[in-house]
């Protein structure tokens, strides 16, 4: 579904990604972990061109994204949802409007259809009575569940999660991870940058360990935690587990 070939990214001459080649299949749940500064968020943000790669190729459904015109990139982004660390809900809009804005503006649904979809999504994320509230009145966990609902409203084929629980108070992490697990069980293709090792072990079909701008090691969850190969991963796991 997504193929990345020799992806490199520099920020003002400093290399952040040093050549990543990776393939993500439909239905896979790929979890990316690694120390801060390893480039994992940058890698994720390159997948929907939130960051422009310096070189390399990104293939999505037969299209090479770095060669697309802006208009076509917008079309690709409609099919790739993204969930941010800081939620980025639209504070001037009600929850219902947050969810329905994009599908209505992009003429994928009428306002009525989108409203119905929003209702259904709000039930799915467990917040059916919040439709007319504003984001400021929600807790962090609720905000992130709404952000996931907003991404789902576009019927994406894959969702990219950029540290979705890192800005949450500890007691709210569980509700967001539970929702993500539910999405995974429903068969959604997911790429997740996270520090939640429990989630990685339980939900991932594959875990990537990134360090120094490369994918240093990857494995299935059971082997990843029990039989780490590189010294870097052994050190990392001994610190976080």
């Amino acid at each position, binding site marked *: 579904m997504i193929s990345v070939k020799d992806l490199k990214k520099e920020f003002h001459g400093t290399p952040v990604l040093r050549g990543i080649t990776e393939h993500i299949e439909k239905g896979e749940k790929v979890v990316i972990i690694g120390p801060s500064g390893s480039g994992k968020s940058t890698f994720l943000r390159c997948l929907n061109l939130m960051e422009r790669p310096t070189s390399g190729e990104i293939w999505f459904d037969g299209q090479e994204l770095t060669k697309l015109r802006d208009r076509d990139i917008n079309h690709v982004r409609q*099919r790739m949802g993204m969930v941010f660390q800081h939620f980025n809900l639209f504070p001037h809009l009600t929850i219902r409007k947050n969810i329905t804005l994009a599908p209505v503006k992009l003429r994928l649904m009428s306002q009525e259809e989108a409203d119905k979809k929003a209702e259904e999504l709000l039930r799915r994320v467990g917040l059916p009575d919040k439709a007319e509230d504003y984001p400021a009145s929600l807790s962090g966990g609720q905000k992130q569940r709404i952000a996931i609902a907003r991404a789902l409203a576009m019927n994406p084929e894959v969702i990219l999660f950029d540290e979705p629980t890192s800005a949450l108070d500890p007691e709210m992490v569980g509700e967001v991870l539970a929702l993500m697990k539910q999405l995974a069980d429903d068969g959604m293709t997911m790429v997740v940058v996270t520090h939640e090792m429990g989630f990685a072990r339980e939900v991932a079909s594959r875990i990537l360990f990134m360090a120094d701008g490369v994918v240093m090691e990857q494995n299935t969850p059971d082997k990843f935690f029990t039989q780490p190969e590189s010294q870097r991963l052994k050190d990392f796991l001994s610190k976080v587990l």
Partner: protein
Amino acid sequence: MSFTESFRQNFIEDDRWQYLTEGLKTTLVITFFAVLIGMVLGFIVAVIRSTYLRTKKLLIPDLICRLYLTVIRGTPVVVQLLIIYFVIFASVPISKTLVAVIAFGINSGAYVAEIVRGGIMAVDIGQLEAGRSLGLNYRQTMVSIILPQALKTVLPALANEAIVLLKETSVAGYIAIADLTKGGDIIRSQTFSAFMPLIAVALIYLTMVIILSRLVNLLERRLTRNDKR
């Protein structure tokens, strides 16, 4: 001369009060339309400038905007008014009030642009990213997500700019427009008493500014209250 006699001479005799009321009307007309032009111009410039700053697109329009901002903010408004009237429209038959509206509008636009640009840049970059990640293009994200939030934060500052403009139009007399200030000055030249007409003019400006400032305060309180909903 007693106070009442002076009052009678300056305002009642020959219906001189009409210089003030007619002048006030002219001042308000110039201010109103100049504010409109300033807002439209300022918004366009602010969007161009922040688009360039955020995306590095629109380089040429941005250069033009920067030139406009530098020239307008670097020269006195009276000089701009005189140039527009005596140079640019020198050989064009055009109403003086319209010239003043254009001049003050262009002047105000530069200040509005900087206020609005500040508001746009103050909106968290995550808002732009969230909009773009959903597939909205830059323009849709700007119109539906960034500008409404920016507008809300800068509304009080914009209202203050309108108040400033109201006072700045008092130099319209330089091109012989009979605005409020000029009205008071005409009375002074007829009655040879400066105190009454000029103090009256000052009081009228002051009253309008106080009323408008009150409205801005109300607006500000209304906006912050909405934040807490």
